[in-house]
């Protein structure tokens, strides 16, 4: 055989095959210089082919930034994205469900095209890293031959539809959400109403209110199964999201009957496409639209939109066979043998959950940092073929769950895992951490989230058995930057990467976020307590858990404890470890976990988090939002001086982003930023608001002049924060005007 296309023949469904052929054609055209960079980037992103750190051809080797000289020369696969540079492929796995055969093919691709590691993401996808773009089409064909598409895994589209990994077998579900999640995935894939979003759109299903598995509250649209008067439906929420400023979704419908779910979703999509922000990506998620118009108005808009929809038989066709997605066990149900080994019992305590179906269990394979090898994948597939069938699920906690395991086979399954070194105990406990890719492979990473969780995991695993049950039950999650891909807001102890300047050098830090709630679909988010140097985070975990154990009342949960004692107390606990030693005293603080290179943020690239490339300026604006958010926290904690200094810093960050957007070189210090802002944005009136004119700009100029933020009392701090808020709004608006002007100019050429 000469090609996969030929070899696989009609095992590739026509539609998918056609799409891959088209993509391959575009690759050829791009190589001939016949496609614009931006358009090509969007094309590949929509097919799940992402960029990866250093793909601009630059990398700091610890002694300065060096050029990576790839053989492709000038050829690019997007603005500033070198053709030959390794990239990531995100493989969309609807509600995380994998068949045995799919797991086998994924494992083959991991070996042949990646580094033999498969990575489970926090949204139930599988990612492969270090892929060459020219190998992507054949990978897609092989995936298509087992019914997987990477289409719309990235880009401004409907992302992977997630659902609880126990859907259908859960003891607390109202009903099985799988057929709904499955049908809506198919309905929306490529649907014309979901092609014109300003940003990505994430949907999640949950089978019940109380458990976390669906995590609907931080999704753009979430549906929680409900039965009312014997009728099936969903409580539908909208406008949730994580990121720099996390937002809890609002209730759109207390009870949406099952036959109305698709039209309601479609109406939401159309309202979002029509009214959602398109220019400023930082505000383009639906959460900003819901905030802007208010949930009541949003409901009205959706209701009106619903009226205009032309009925579509697919809205309800799937309801005729709600068992289409049912799984068939391959073994008879049975009881777990009573004389099982101690090892098995220890594993089963957290990793084996009884199903609603008597005699069957779901087994969780706890993966280290969401990773497993191709050889392990193949061996797991063999186990599944024999014992559980096509019932594998990738979970939001970056594990694999095998459902429909007969109790009678549970120990055999466990022994199989032991042979593969995959029988780690403690799924869903403190040693089962979640992490985004962070600086390992993400272009936006600020700190090494995987390095950190790897280190914490190593340290905690050895003492796992000695931990107090209250500590063992805690969850930890880490994100390498404010984008929050590691879902750290929903953890008891969460970490977000930030960098801090210390004595003229950058030091990797993590902001510690405490008291987020995982249960009840991530009902509340944690609060930022403060930044701690990366290398002190293990110590921080120790201090936090000790403090909690020593001071909790009765069986008080960590959330309740946090709510009672507040951030202030935890700030005191962490204060002694917040300042890193000087470089001369201990240079190890100046590099990150698992990375001996001297720390730099110079490798941060232009993100490809959605659709087209995200300009640097937007990250500046995002960062400013985060700083303002922190400042607000500080004010709440009664730290007026810190709050107003933070607010000033946020303004400077936003100003710097805009100045840089104008391609003016600017240094990091406030004086230089403000001077350049004045020359290039204030004096030119570019920053002027159509109505308020130069008012917002003067907030920054004046504050910089009189330095009032330095000696702020509560009242001044409040005012400073208000002004900073307005300044940031004006900065977003200014950026939008600049982009529009550039677009008009380009069109006129």
């Amino acid at each position: 055989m000469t090609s996969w296309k030929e070899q696989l023949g009609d095992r590739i469904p026509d539609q998918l095959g056609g799409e891959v052929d088209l993509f391959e054609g575009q690759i050829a055209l791009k190589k001939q210089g016949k496609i614009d960079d931006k358009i090509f980037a969007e094309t590949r992103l929509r097919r799940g082919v992402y960029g990866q750190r250093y793909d601009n051809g630059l990398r700091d080797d610890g002694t300065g930034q060096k050029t990576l000289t790839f053989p492709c020369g000038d050829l690019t696969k997007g603005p500033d994205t070198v053709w030959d540079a390794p990239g990531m492929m995100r493989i969309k796995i609807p509600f995380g469900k994998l068949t045995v055969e799919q797991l086998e093919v994924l494992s083959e691709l991991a070996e042949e095209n990646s580094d033999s590691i498969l990575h489970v993401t926090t949204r139930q996808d599988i990612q492969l890293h270090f892929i060459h773009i020219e190998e992507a089409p054949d990978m897609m064909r092989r995936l298509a031959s087992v019914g997987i598409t990477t289409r719309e895994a990235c880009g401004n589209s409907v992302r992977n539809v997630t659902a609880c990994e126990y859907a259908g077998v859960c003891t607390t579900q109202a009903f099985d959400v799988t057929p709904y999640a499955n049908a809506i995935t198919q309905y929306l894939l490529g649907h014309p109403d979901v092609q014109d979003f300003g940003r990505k759109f994430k949907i999640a299903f949950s089978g019940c209110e109380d458990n976390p598995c669906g995590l609907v509250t931080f999704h753009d649209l979430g549906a929680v199964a409900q039965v009312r008067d014997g009728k099936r439906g969903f409580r539908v929420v909208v406008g949730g999201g994580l990121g720099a400023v996390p937002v809890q979704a609002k209730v759109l419908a207390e009870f949406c009957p099952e036959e109305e779910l698709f039209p309601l979703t479609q109406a939401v999509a159309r309202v979002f496409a029509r009214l959602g922000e398109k220019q400023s990506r930082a505000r383009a998620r639906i959460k900003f639209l819901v905030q802007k118009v208010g949930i009541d108005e949003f409901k009205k808009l959706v209701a009106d939109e619903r009226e205009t929809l032309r009925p579509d038989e697919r809205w309800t066709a799937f309801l005729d066979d709600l068992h289409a997605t049912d799984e068939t066990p391959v073994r008879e149900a049975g009881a777990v043998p009573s004389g099982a080994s101690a090892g098995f019992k220890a594993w089963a305590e957290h990793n084996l959950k009884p199903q609603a179906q008597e005699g069957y269990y779901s087994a969780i394979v706890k993966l280290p940092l969401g990773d497993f090898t191709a050889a392990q994948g193949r061996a797991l597939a063999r186990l599944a073929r024999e014992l559980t069938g096509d019932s594998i699920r990738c979970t939001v906690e970056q594990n694999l769950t095998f459902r429909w395991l007969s109790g009678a086979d549970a120990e055999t399954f466990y022994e199989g895992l032991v042979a593969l070194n995959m029988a780690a105990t403690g799924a869903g406990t403190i040693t089962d951490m979640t992490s985004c890719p962070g600086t390992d492979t993400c272009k936006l990473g600020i700190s090494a989230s995987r390095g950190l969780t790897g280190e914490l995991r190593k340290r905690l695993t050895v003492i796992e058995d000695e931990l107090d049950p209250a500590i063992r039950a805690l969850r930890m999650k880490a994100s390498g930057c404010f984008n929050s891909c590691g879902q750290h807001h929903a953890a008891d102890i969460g970490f977000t990467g930030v960098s801090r300047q210390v004595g003229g050098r950058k030091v990797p830090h993590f902001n510690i976020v405490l008291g987020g709630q995982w249960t009840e679909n991530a009902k509340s988010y944690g609060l930022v307590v403060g930044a701690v140097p990366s290398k002190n985070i293990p110590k921080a975990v120790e201090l936090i858990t000790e403090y909690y154990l020593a001071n909790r009342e009765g069986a008080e949960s960590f959330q309740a404890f946090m709510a009672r004692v507040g951030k202030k107390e935890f700030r005191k606990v962490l204060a002694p470890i917040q300042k890193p030693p000087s470089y001369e005293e201990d240079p190890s603080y100046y590099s990150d976990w698992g990375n001996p290179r001297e720390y730099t943020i110079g490798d941060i690239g232009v993100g490809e988090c959605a659709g087209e490339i995200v300009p640097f300026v937007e990250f500046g604006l995002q960062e400013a939002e985060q700083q303002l958010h922190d400042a607000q926290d500080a004010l709440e904690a009664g730290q007026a001086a810190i709050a107003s200094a933070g607010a000033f810093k946020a303004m400077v960050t936003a100003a710097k982003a805009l100045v840089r957007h104008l391609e003016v070189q600017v240094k990091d210090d406030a004086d230089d930023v403000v001077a350049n802002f004045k020359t290039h944005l204030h004096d030119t009136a570019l920053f002027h608001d159509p109505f308020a004119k130069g008012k917002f700009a003067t907030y920054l100029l004046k504050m910089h002049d009189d330095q009032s933020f330095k000696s702020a009392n509560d009242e001044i701090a409040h005012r400073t924060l208000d002004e900073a808020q307005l300044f940031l709004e004006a900065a977003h608006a200014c950026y939008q005007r600049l982009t529009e002007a550039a677009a008009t100019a380009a069109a006129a050429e």
Partner: protein
Amino acid sequence: MQATKFQVKVYTRAGDIELEKLIPVFHEWIRAKKISDELLIDVADYAHVPQGPGVVLIGHQSDYYLDVADNRPGLLYSRKRGFDGDFQAGIDDAFRRALNACRLLEEESSLGLEFATDEVLFRVQDRLAAPNEDATYDAYKPALEQAAGAFFGHAPSLERLGSEREPFAVRISTGAGGTVADALARH
């Protein structure tokens, strides 16, 4: 169509290995351009994965793993891109690059590593051009015997490993007892 995704694994003499120590070494190789005719890009750390790829030096043309699969640590050379030259030259080149990386690792005093030459694993990560079946074995056998003989000085014995789902793999017992430096000097 000719496969070029060859892998060659050379095992370490001692069983245990501290993978973390490889991380600074590989970063330094990138900085110092230790493998001068290849573009080295980054280091991927999978030390947390039991029996996994260990620590990987990611390059453009190929990757170098300090791999701990099957609980047998070894240097795994993995070619990712095409190769200019004939079939035999491509196989010889994979052996040479693997052995050369072993030699470089042996020179790193922080590691204290030593590699054995009595056994080598050869794999092809290309199920289209080199499925794990007899026909592939027949096609590769002479070239592998020739390469092993040339590097290790003895007629080797070969054994095909694994099932159809697994990549084409051959265990080569070289009959040699010398060092990697000897092997490199020989061919």
